[in-house]
């Protein structure tokens, strides 16, 4: 199987889907001549031309709104926002229109729109470029939410997002763009709502969101090496729909759960998932569900502060150990 970087996998998905369907086009700030702020769209302007790879002004709300409008009458726009923080400027169009239009007009139209954006800390971009906001979008009925952590998932899920008739919030991660991984040759779209079990184990279930799936895997290796604990690591890959079955099956086996996310703790993905687990698997639990989250602060710039503000594998190890503490 060929290996490639996460950004190359995304690029391949875009290229393949644009070849597949004339209605697919890209819009975003510096996606064309500049080749994308993170080079995800490299080469696409040259290949497909200005009609289908459109550099936009810095007008996030209107770019997304135009994506919604064009999707309503039959195009399949893929809008790139430079960071998830900038998507807050487009929250009106995403929540009030993309997510609601089909419902509020009684099913007369659909909105096959994809909004791609990277999130995450680690590059010292400070408090307006480094957050993790999956929870905002998870909150909204009408949206689908994907947060792939590997190149293979990035490609397969982006292809699925473009082909899906629903509006999709596609959350990438800034520190993953350069990560390499195996990507199946001629791989098609993946299914939404199918979690990946990254590592099997019987002792504790660790659910990692976005990049935290990788942090969770590292923590699991440490738990095995240093504590003789076999963790099962689950990457949900999509948050709406969520593959709760796989998570519950695992918790039923391990009786312990740790949820790891980079976003803020209050009202976070972990808060939601912990509630789901206790609603559905309370009797299976031998310990309270543990959450590992980003610090409850705007992301600081200074390197040591920034590193302290998002989870690392030692935090996950501690949380996993805590599920055994009272036994």
């Amino acid at each position, binding site marked *: 199987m060929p290996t490639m970087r996460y950004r190359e996998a995304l690029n391949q998905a875009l290229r393949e889907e644009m070849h597949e369907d004339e209605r697919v*086009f890209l819009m975003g700030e510096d996606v064309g001549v500049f080749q994308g702020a993170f080079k995800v769209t490299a080469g696409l302007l040259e290949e497909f031309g200005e*009609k289908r790879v*459109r550099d*936009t*002004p810095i*007008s996030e*709300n*209107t*770019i*997304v*709104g*135009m*994506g*919604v*409008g*064009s*999707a*309503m*009458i*039959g*195009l399949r*726009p893929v809008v790139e926002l430079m960071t998830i923080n900038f998507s807050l400027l487009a929250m*009106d*169009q995403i929540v*009030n*229109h993309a997510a609601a*239009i*089909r*419902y*509020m*007009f*009684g*099913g*007369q*139209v*659909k909105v096959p729109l994809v909004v791609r954006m990277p999130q995450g800390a680690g590059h010292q971009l400070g408090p307006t470029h480094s957050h993790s906001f999956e929870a905002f979008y998870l909150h909204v*009925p*009408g949206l*689908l939410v994907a947060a792939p952590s590997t190149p293979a998932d990035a490609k397969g899920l982006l292809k*699925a997002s473009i082909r*899906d*008739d*629903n509006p999709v919030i596609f959350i990438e991660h800034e520190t993953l763009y350069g990560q390499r991984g195996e990507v199946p040759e001629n791989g098609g779209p993946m*299914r*939404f*709502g199918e979690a990946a079990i990254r590592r099997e184990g019987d002792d504790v279930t660790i659910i990692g969101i976005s990049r935290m799936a990788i942090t969770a895997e590292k923590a699991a290796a440490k738990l095995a090496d240093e504590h003789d604990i076999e963790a099962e690591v689950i990457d949900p890959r999509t948050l*709406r*729909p*969520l593959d*709760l*079955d796989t998570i*519950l*099956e695992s918790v*039923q086996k391990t009786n312990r759960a740790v949820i790891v996310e980079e976003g803020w703790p209050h009202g976070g993905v972990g808060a939601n998932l912990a509630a*789901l687990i206790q*609603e*559905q698997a309370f*009797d299976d639990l031998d310990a309270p569900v543990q959450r590992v989250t980003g610090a409850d602060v705007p992301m600081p710039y200074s390197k040591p502060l920034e590193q302290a503000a998002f989870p690392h594998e030692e935090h996950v190890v501690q949380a996993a150990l805590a599920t055994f503490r009272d036994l």
Partner: protein
Amino acid sequence: MATREKTNGDGAAPTDVPADIKFGEIKHDLPDKGTCETVLSKMMLIRRFEERAGEMYAKAKIGGFLHLCIGEEATVVGGTQALRETDYLMSTYREHGQALARGTDPKVVMAELFGRVTGCSKGRGGSMHLFDWDKRFLGGYGIVGGSLPLSAGVALANDYLETEDVIVSMMGDGATNQGTFGETMNLAALWKLPVVFVIINNQFGMGTALHRHSAVTDLSIKSEGFGVPGTRCDGMDVLDVHSVVTDALRCAREERRPQLVEAVTYRYRGHSMADPEEYRTKEEVEEWRARDPIKAFSDRLVAEGVMSEEDVERFDAEAIATVDEAVKFADESPFPDLDSLYDDIYVFDSDVPAWWTVDERSPHVHRGEHERESGEVPHRLAEQGAAYAGVERRARPRDEDKDEGEGEPEDDG
């Protein structure tokens, strides 16, 4: 208690009456008789429909907010008459008139206001969110300025698909202060999109008079710096609106030059039904009522011998009868089934086979329109007023496997 002087805030002039618009002056020849009749009957239908909607609101048949366009009929009918059938229209939340002018059945518009399943948005949208795909009326929108990017997106798609279709994007004067106004004008001009923006300047952003909410009160120049030329017209004269919008549509369609039209008009009624109108004087309203677009047009039709007074009365009686029928239809229509609460949130396909796959709390509970087997459970949920998930415990694949398997009892410790 001191009597508060009713001014537009700072004691300055009441609403601006632009000097460049000669209200009441004849600007255009009448079109043919058939067109005159269509235009008059549409304006009358809108007027009667709105009056009746106001009454139905007072009788609590209609909930929420109700924004009436009485006084603005010439802008709505003049603007929409300029469209081809294949063109698109988007509007604000004051859009009953637009739907009616575009040909949506008054019955389904009234039914939507009544929240009935027979409404044009199946009772999901209400007064502010009418929509009629077949008439290419792409909606009323409740966010001021929110529909501007959408309309530019529709224009982008029309350009992309190489059609001749144009969209008219209607907004109020208040929308010109939103960020989306500047963003959308810039993009429309930059990408040469086939769109015509029509500002229905009814002099108020809710209760704030134009000169108190916009530093520039000639709204037709607000888009020019972004590359979209603007033209002002007499919004009380249906022929003037029609003429100016027609020219604008031609530019947008044939030359791919987006245009803006400001139609200066007046809202006789409050912003919504819940508006005590403390911000303007009766005299001001009367002054504008004297320019009434329907009376002015019908008087002229009689004066020029196109129709008689009796004909005018007959048209009005027909409008009243149509509205009577619409009210009857709405009142007799059922409310949406509670079971339909979860319909049409998602398009179901292989990724989203049913609603419960998206709201994981509620497996087998609210299944959505294509998956519903029994209405019982979603009905119960809807009656409880929320998607309470605790009614059913999720059936786990593992449990099912065990039941079907060796039947080994689970050791619960």
